[in-house]
């Protein structure tokens, strides 16, 4: 039976260790846990913050659909996705994916798949606030679209 993904869209930070612990505590069937943490990276030393706008309701629904597809496609024992919104400073967390499974390749592939689809399908938009320049929306890249194509069957 497919695991039920845990999806959260929130302004506050998340705690990596607690999320992994939640997925393994008291279990003996988890052999592999892969986590992906996406952080706010400074583009050239002038970034003051990213502002992440999102579409409330759809953000949860769309991440839920992507996570549900991953849970159907791979035999996962657990799957958590947390995506933050609002103002985020360089070095701070933006997104977390935790995928747990019996076997390592399963956990790797599911986490990798999740991130590729989150990038291009989850309704979030980044705006950069940088010293000495106007606010600017981050452009989507062709690379992000290509990454998603990797998972076609």
């Amino acid at each position, binding site marked *: 039976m497919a695991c039920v993904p845990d999806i959260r869209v929130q302004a506050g930070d998340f705690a990596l260790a607690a999320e992994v612990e939640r997925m393994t505590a008291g279990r003996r069937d988890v052999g592999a846990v892969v986590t992906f943490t996406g952080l706010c990276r400074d583009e050239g030393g002038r970034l003051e913050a990213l502002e992440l706008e999102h579409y409330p309701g759809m953000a949860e629904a769309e991440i839920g659909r992507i996570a549900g597809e991953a849970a159907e496609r791979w035999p996962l024992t657990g799957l958590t996705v947390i*995506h933050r919104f609002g103002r985020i400073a360089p070095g701070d967390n933006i997104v977390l994916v935790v995928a747990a499974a019996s076997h390592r390749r399963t956990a790797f592939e599911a986490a990798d798949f999740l991130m590729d689809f*989150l990038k291009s399908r*989850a309704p979030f*938009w*980044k705006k950069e606030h940088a010293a000495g320049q106007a606010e600017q929306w981050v*452009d989507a890249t062709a690379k992000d679209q290509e990454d998603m194509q990797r998972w076609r069957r």
Partner: protein
Amino acid sequence: MKLVYFAWVRERIGQSEEEITLPPEVKTVAELLGWLAKRGDGYATALEHAEAIRVAVNHEHVDHTARLPGDGEIALFPPMTGG
């Protein structure tokens, strides 16, 4: 019909949401984008490159060829940059 806008689509249109009664000849997403673009300068600028605009109906992505629903929420926004 409730329309909601995000990111630079929202900024260019100048509001985040509005209630609109669509004329009966506007039946598809593509027709909606064309019709909206004639509502004023903000709309025209926001929807200038209509093919780049992403659309969701009731929280689900749809193609520009999709028929509009009887009612509900239609969202217009730029390509997503989350993750």
